[in-house]
């Protein structure tokens, strides 16, 4: 069983990296199409080898560390960002159960009772990568970028947490696998928690440092923000971590609010269980890819928030809304329980 898990994790690792790499390609293509251009089309047919070319370029560049930088932390920053970005995929249920050679495997690395909290914890550690990287650069723009990243992360984690509280109250479990099963039995969470979903979505944009909340790397004000001084694959790791985070957040959004690998009415068709599982996994990936596209779509449609607007929205907008959502959910849940008797 451990061997199977190790193999699954390896496959997950490769898939995560591939999706992240192709997200960079997708980002450029989506950006181009939204701006009436066609985007990269030189490397291979339709430019599909572009991520390889970009990766090669990143590795070939000079790896420069500024003289006044703290060398150890400067190297540690991108490493933490990358490692934490890859760690969250483990608890996401990528599919149901697969029966091979008489054994049953779950398409999930592990399903701890505290699944969501684990995701939150790892995402919070992720900001250390940005903070250490920015601070160790010994550059005021990088420092400002990392300070922004830290304050933004702290502010929006509250909204994110509150939207999850309501969700957990409704589903009665913190385990991601449990949440998906609950949705399969009772309908997707988006039907019960539209406001919570909205809060979660907005906070996810802020947590992944994506536009319109990409204040930490705001190039019009801060040159490159926290990665101003980074070059070569250290920069590559920061960018890669952002895309990995985007992939994982999209998967988490799909899992929490859109039924994860659940496809309505699929189990009534009476298909082979293995086939059902695979279709479910494909469905989860389709949902995830839609949200990745949505992230990009928003990025290339909206201007960036100002930092005080960002803080206003977080503290005065999303947190009160989140608390209201928790209260409403609790009240309605209780009333329904009373009515049922």
């Amino acid at each position, binding site marked *: 069983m451990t061997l199977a898990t190790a193999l699954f994790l390896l496959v997950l690792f490769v898939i995560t990296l591939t999706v992240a790499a192709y997200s960079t390609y997708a980002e450029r293509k*989506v950006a181009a*199409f*939204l*701006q*009436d*251009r*066609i985007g990269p*089309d030189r490397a291979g047919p339709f430019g599909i080898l572009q991520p390889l070319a970009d990766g090669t370029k990143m590795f070939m560049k000079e790896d420069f560390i500024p003289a006044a930088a703290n060398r150890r932390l400067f190297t540690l920053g991108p490493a933490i960002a990358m490692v934490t970005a890859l760690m969250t995929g483990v608890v996401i249920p990528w599919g149901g159960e697969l029966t091979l050679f008489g054994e049953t495997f779950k398409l999930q690395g592990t399903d701890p009772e505290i699944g969501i909290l684990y995701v939150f914890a790892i995402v919070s550690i992720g900001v250390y990568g940005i903070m250490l990287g920015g601070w160790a650069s010994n550059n005021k723009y990088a420092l400002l970028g990392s300070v922004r990243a830290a304050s933004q992360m702290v502010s929006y984690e509250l909204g994110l947490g509150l939207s999850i509280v309501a969700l957990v109250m409704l589903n009665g479990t913190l385990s991601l696998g449990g949440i998906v099963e609950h949705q399969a039995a009772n309908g997707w969470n988006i039907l019960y928690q539209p406001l919570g979903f909205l809060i979660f979505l907005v906070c996810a944009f802020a947590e992944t440092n994506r536009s319109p909340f990409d204040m930490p790397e705001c190039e019009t004000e801060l040159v490159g923000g926290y990665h101003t001084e980074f070059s070569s694959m250290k920069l590559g790791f920061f960018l890669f971590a952002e895309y990995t985070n985007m992939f994982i957040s999209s998967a988490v959004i799909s899992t929490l609010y859109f039924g994860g690998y659940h496809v309505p009415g699929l189990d009534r068709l009476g298909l082979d269980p293995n086939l059902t599982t695979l279709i479910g996994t494909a469905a989860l990936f389709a949902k995830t890819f839609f949200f990745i596209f949505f992230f990009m*779509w*928003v990025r*290339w*449609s*909206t201007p960036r928030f100002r930092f005080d607007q960002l803080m206003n*929205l977080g503290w005065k*907008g999303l947190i009160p809304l989140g608390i209201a959502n928790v209260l409403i959910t609790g009240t309605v849940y209780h009333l329904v329980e009373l009515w049922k008797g």
Partner: protein
Amino acid sequence: MSAPKPLTDRSRVVSDKRMTLMERIYLPAMVAGLLITIKHFFRRKPTIRYPEQERPRPAVYRGRHVLKRDEQGRERCTACGLCAVACPAEAISMVADERRPDEAHLYREEKYARIYQIDMLCCIYCGLCEEACPKEAIFLTDRLVKADHLRMPFVFGKDELVEPLDPAKRIDVSGRQTAAVLKFKQNPRYAHNR
């Protein structure tokens, strides 16, 4: 007095009134923006994928030069240097030489350009060389100068400038010979060129 008529139909009155609730929750504006961009997503792209596709160029386009030959395949250029004098970018240089008796089939007149060079990076494609030429030897064409990684290949010598001997491969410059140009050339002063 009535308000002055706006100069364009895109002018908007700016106001600093407080935003309404709908404006303050951002979402309607956000959705409107997303709808605008998704429309562009499916729009036809005006991109022309350059080496494979080329934008159609007008016949009078001033591109890469050609040194013409006459009907018998002799080079028209006599290395008078008027083009080099006319050139505002000083891109043209040449070395004249005297035609030997056995070269009468190669050069139209007794004097010819042994070396004729145009620096394509200096050239501003103004066409003054063509206007200055009394022998109708140099023309700008609708061909392009291809990009390169080095500077040296852009100094074009006679091997690249003189049009091929083969009548089928001659470079057509009739596009540059507009009605006005042809009428101008009827002037008896230029009869020796024909």
